[in-house]
C-alpha cells in the first residue's frame, strides 16, 4: 500500500478530481491533441504566447488521475515560462518519473510525481500532457502520442 500512497499523493488525487486550467482558450495561438493508445486517454491543449513566453495554457480531455493531475499541475507551472525553460523543465520531469533521482529544485510541486517511477506502465500517463504541450509549442499539427 505504501508505494500506492507514494503514487496517489493527496495533491495528485486533488488535481485528478478537480483539474485546474481545465477550460477552452478561445482563439488560442497554439493547440495540439495528445493520445495514449494504450488506454485511450485523450487530451487537447491550448496555448497563447507573449513573444517567447507562455501567457496562458489550458487543457481539455479525459484520462486517469495521474494524467489529469499531471496536465493540471503542468499548466500551473509553465505559465510565464519561455519555451526553452519549459523544455528544460520537462527534461527534469522525465528524469524524475523514470530514474531514482532527487527531484530537481525547479520542479517544485511536480516533485509529487516521484512515485511514478515505481510504476513503469504509468510513465506514459504522467508525460502525455508534456508531449502534447511541446507539440503545441512547436506548432505541429500532428497528434502527439506517448508511443
Amino acid at each position, binding site marked *: 500500500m505504501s*508505494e500506492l500512497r507514494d503514487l496517489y499523493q493527496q495533491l495528485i488525487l486533488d488535481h485528478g478530481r478537480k483539474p485546474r486550467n481545465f477550460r477552452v482558450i478561445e482563439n488560442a495561438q497554439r493547440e495540439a491533441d495528445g493520445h495514449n493508445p494504450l488506454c485511450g486517454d485523450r487530451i487537447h491543449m491550448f496555448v497563447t504566447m507573449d513573444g517567447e513566453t507562455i501567457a496562458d495554457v489550458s487543457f481539455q480531455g479525459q484520462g486517469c488521475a*495521474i494524467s489529469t493531475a499531471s496536465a493540471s499541475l503542468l499548466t500551473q507551472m509553465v505559465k510565464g515560462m519561455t519555451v526553452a525553460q519549459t523544455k528544460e523543465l520537462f527534461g527534469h520531469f522525465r528524469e524524475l518519473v523514470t530514474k531514482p533521482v532527487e527531484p530537481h529544485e525547479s520542479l517544485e510541486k511536480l516533485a509529487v510525481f516521484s512515485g511514478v517511477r515505481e510504476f513503469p506502465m504509468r510513465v506514459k500517463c504522467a508525460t502525455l500532457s508534456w508531449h502534447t504541450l511541446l507539440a503545441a509549442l512547436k506548432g505541429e499539427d500532428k497528434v502527439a502520442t506517448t508511443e
Partner: protein
Amino acid sequence: MSQATGFSVDAIRNDFPFFARSSGTEPPLAYLDNAATAQKPQCVLDAVLDLYRDATSNVHRGVHRLSAEATRRYENARDIVQRYIHAHDRCEIVFTRGTTESVNLVAQSYVRPLLGAGDEILITQMEHHSNFVPWQMVAEQTGAVVRVAPVTPQGELDLDAWRALLTERTKFVSVVHTSNAIGTINPVAEIVRLAHERGVAVLVDGAQAMPHQRVDVQALGADFFAFSGHKVFGPTGIGVLYGKQELLDDMPPYQGGGDMIKLVSLTNTVWNDLPYKFEAGTPNIAGAVGLGAALEWMKTIDLDGAALHERALHDDATARLRQWDDVRLIGTAAHKAAVVAFVMDGVHPHDIGTILDQARVAIRTGHHCAQPLLESFGVHATARASFALYNTHEEVAALAAGMAQVRELFGA
C-alpha cells in the same frame, strides 16, 4: 456447486504450471484477464517443446524422416481441430495467425469480390476491432457500406433492429459469438438462419466462445468460423479459419508464396488444393501442434461443469461489485460468459488497474478494442475481470478486496 459434477477446479489447476509457480515463493497472483489470453497447461508446453526438440524440420517439403515427422504432427493438429469443431472435412481447417488474420482472409478473398458500390456488410456494435476494421477496409476498397446493428442498454443485440438492417443490399454478415468486452453471448444460430433465408453467408468470430463451450460448426450452420489458439489455452500466433469447402474452393488465395501453389511457371501458376491454397509460407508448425494439444486437453474437461463453475464466479463477482452504489456494471445480458466489466464514479479504470495489480489481481483496463461498443454505454474505458475455468472464489474475493483498497485510496 462444482462438486455436483465431474468438474474439479483443483484438478484443473494442477494441469497449469502457472499456479504451481504462484503458490511457491511469490504471493499468489489472481489472473483475471482470460479474455485477453489464457494460461497454458503443461501438455501444451510439452507439445511445443517436443516438436522443437524432436522434430524441427519444415513441413510438406523434405523426403527425409524429420520432415515427415513434423508434417505428421502438423497435420494431426488439423485433424484434432476438425474433430473438435465438427467440421465436415479436414480441408476446411485453415491455419492462420489468429482470429484477426482469419477475418481479414474472408474479407479479402470471399467478400471483396462479391461487393459493388452500395452493397452492405452487416455487423453488430459489440464487435472487436478485428471484426470492424477489415470490413471498413473492404468497404473503402469497393464502395460498399458497413451497417452496424445497435445493442440494448443491457448489452444485448437489438434483434428487431438487426432484422430491419438485414435487407436485399446485405451481401455478408459477420458477428461475434461472445463479446470480449462485456461477455454477451449472441444468438448466433438464429443470426445464421436469418442470413441464410436471404442467401447471405455468415462469419462467426468464435475467439471468446471457444474457451467456454463446445462448438459444432455444422450445427451452428456458420459459413466461416474464426478463432485464436491462445485464448483456448494454446500458443499465441496460431489460429484457425473454418470455411465451408464449397466456399473456400471458389475463393482466390489471400497471400502468395511457397506451399500454396502446385506449379509455378513464368506465365502461369496453379493454386494448391485446400487448405494449402491459404497457407502461404512456412506455417507456425509448433503453434499448430500446441493448439492441437490444447484442444485434446479441452476434450478431457467436463465443460458443462466448467460452465456452472464460471457462472458461479461471475455471479459472485457481480454481487460483490454491486454492494457499492458508485460501481456500475457495463453489460448485464441475460446470456453471458464470465466477463464482468465495470466503471466506478470518480476513479479512472487505469487507476483501478494499477491498484489491483499492487493487490496482485490482474485485470484489463481500457477500451478492450471495442471502442464503438463502449461509446454506446457512454464510457471511454472500463475495468474488466474475465474468468476462466481455473479461477476460484478466493480470486473473486481478492478482486473485491482490491476494490476496497481503491475506495480507501480515493476516499470514496
